[in-house]
């Protein structure tokens, strides 16, 4: 192995740190996906596009002179309502249908969002400059932008806040009850329609937070949504539904994998390697389960 990255330990450390900080963001998006997958049994292909839309909200605040970090507060509020509107218009008609129908319907939403964002915000790659500066470690050989540390911190805060909310609040209990058995919950007086709308809204809000953070730390572009969907799907199938520590771990693992793929294979293969990893993970799971004569359900 004559790759530069393994010869210079600082470079390896850099990649690992970058990957971990990036992975926490992925885990936040995946958490939203796991939530609505578990509760409503819907795979949302438009997840990544919701993330990008949330990013554009923060970017516009930056354009109008407000510090983009406030996007972390504003973006989820707006995105919550976007999520509820999407639910009312489309998702509530596909909730109890075949999963492929929901995949296709959200694929349609994804295409729609991509193009509307392209019209509204232009096809340029943009980022919101937070002006947070950089932290240098080990004689300036490892650089960590403070915005990345900030985004990881905010993601953790939101994730923990949501866990507590799901455990303690009335709506959180209703959501968990619906996830366990929607019919029983309905009999016991839970308005499942409202719970579904709220779940989709919370998912969109989480995407909004993640998007705002991504617009600060990385770049956003109207067509960049699908890789985020695939990443969160991958994290969820590795971790399993309702396994929050697992989601965090596999999110960070994916982040580190991506940084290494970036260094070793080159940036042009980065997205490709993510999608290939998805295929490999699914195939691995399939062979593992087929020994017990079972299949992924």
């Amino acid at each position, binding site marked *: 192995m004559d790759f530069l990255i393994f010869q210079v330990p600082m470079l390896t450390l850099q990649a690992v740190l970058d990957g971990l900080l990036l992975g926490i963001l992925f885990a936040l998006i995946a958490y939203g996906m796991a939530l609505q997958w578990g509760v409503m049994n819907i*795979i949302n292909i438009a997840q990544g596009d919701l993330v990008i839309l949330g990013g554009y909200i923060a970017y516009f605040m930056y354009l109008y002179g407000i510090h983009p970090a406030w996007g972390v507060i504003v973006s989820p509020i707006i995105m919550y309502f976007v999520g509820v509107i999407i639910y009312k218009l*489309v998702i509530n*008609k*596909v909730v109890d*249908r075949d*999963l*492929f*129908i929901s*995949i*296709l*319907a959200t*694929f*349609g*939403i*994804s*295409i*729609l*969002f*991509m*193009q*509307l964002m*392209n*019209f509204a915000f232009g096809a340029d790659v943009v980022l919101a400059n937070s002006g947070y500066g950089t932290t240098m470690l080990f004689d300036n050989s490892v650089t960590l932008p403070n915005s990345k540390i900030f985004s990881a911190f905010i993601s953790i805060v939101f994730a923990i806040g949501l866990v507590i909310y799901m455990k303690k609040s009335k709506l959180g209990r209703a959501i968990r009850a619906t996830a366990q058995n929607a019919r029983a919950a309905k009999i016991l007086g839970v308005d499942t329609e409202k719970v579904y709308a709220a779940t989709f809204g919370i998912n969109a809000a989480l995407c909004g937070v993640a998007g705002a953070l991504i617009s600060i730390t990385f770049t956003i572009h109207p067509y960049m949504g*699908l890789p985020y969907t*695939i990443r969160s*799907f991958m994290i969820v*199938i590795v971790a399993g539904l309702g396994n929050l520590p697992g989601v965090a771990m596999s999110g960070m693992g994916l982040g580190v994998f991506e940084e290494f793929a970036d260094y070793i294979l*080159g940036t*042009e*293969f980065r*997205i*490709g*390697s993510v*999608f*290939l990893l*998805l*295929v490999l993970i*699914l*195939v691995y799971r*399939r*062979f593992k389960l*087929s020994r017990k004569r079972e*299949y*992924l*359900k």
Partner: protein
Amino acid sequence: MNKNIILYGAILIFGIAAPFIFPAFKVQLSILCILIILAITWNVQGGEMGYNTFGNILFYGLGMYLCASVQVGMFFPLGEWTEGGGEKTFVHTPAQFFQGFAVGLAVAAVVPAIIAGLIGYSILGLRGHYFAICTLGLGVAAGEISGGIEIIGAGQGFTTPPFPNVDRLEARGEFFYFCSFIVLVLTFLAVKAIYSTRFKLVLNAIRDNEDKAEAMGIQTMKYKIIGWMISAFFCGLAGGIMGGLVGYIDSTDVAFDGREMGVFMVLMAILGGKGTLWGPVIGATLFHIFKEGFWTFFLGWQYVALGVLIVVIVIYFPEGIMGWLREKYPERFGEVVDEADRKAQVTLK
């Protein structure tokens, strides 16, 4: 039976005469043929077998690259052809062009089918939405990876050999139209023949309940792989012709275009009616007319319209046109209807 022969004859004659009746629409008609082929092949996989895939675009793009690469590589060094910047000094003579295209098409059909057979055992073990997402990943990964491979043009694309200079100006359009039309007829006949065998029943059994099919002693995996290989074979052919027709291959915008072609084939089959022979044909034709109209008059809004169309079709029209007709006129589809029973069902609803 007689009625059918007249119908098929009329369609065949129309297909042969079409480029001469509408000389301005030759390219559009060729694309229509390609779209119908794609819809039919998707239907073998998604409609009859019940394995809804987004990944048949993989075979389509593969066929496109293979056909063009073989056509160039048979006579000239491929690396120099795709090298950017310089003037293209290589010119195919007519004989070289047609020979290359024929061999290229053969390769473009066979290799994707072999690849489908090789990866089939791993991928087809997944079911339902896992299969759908996995194939979606395959298609996008293929696009991203082929965009990084130098010898087939990487990010800057691959110009397929220009049509050789023969005396007639119309020759290019007619050549590609008849290529695609002949492949369409072959695909249709092959699929029709397959649909009248036990093989189709096995595929339907897999769609309806795979576990039970397996319990009945059917080797489901074997049939699934064969079904996917058939699908890949014709997908590759369609891709090869489309590459020559478009004249330029880009990894993510033309070949592995999951956002357009990959979704189109699913949409066309669903619009026409999954699991029927004629559904994909009707769906693809209607879709192409709609698409061309929209693309021409509302340029820029086409993806918005596409997104809305997908959502509307999927939510309000999942049975498709053939499904709707079947519900309305079950007698025409050879179903025996008991009038009293039907009335009772209607009142129940």
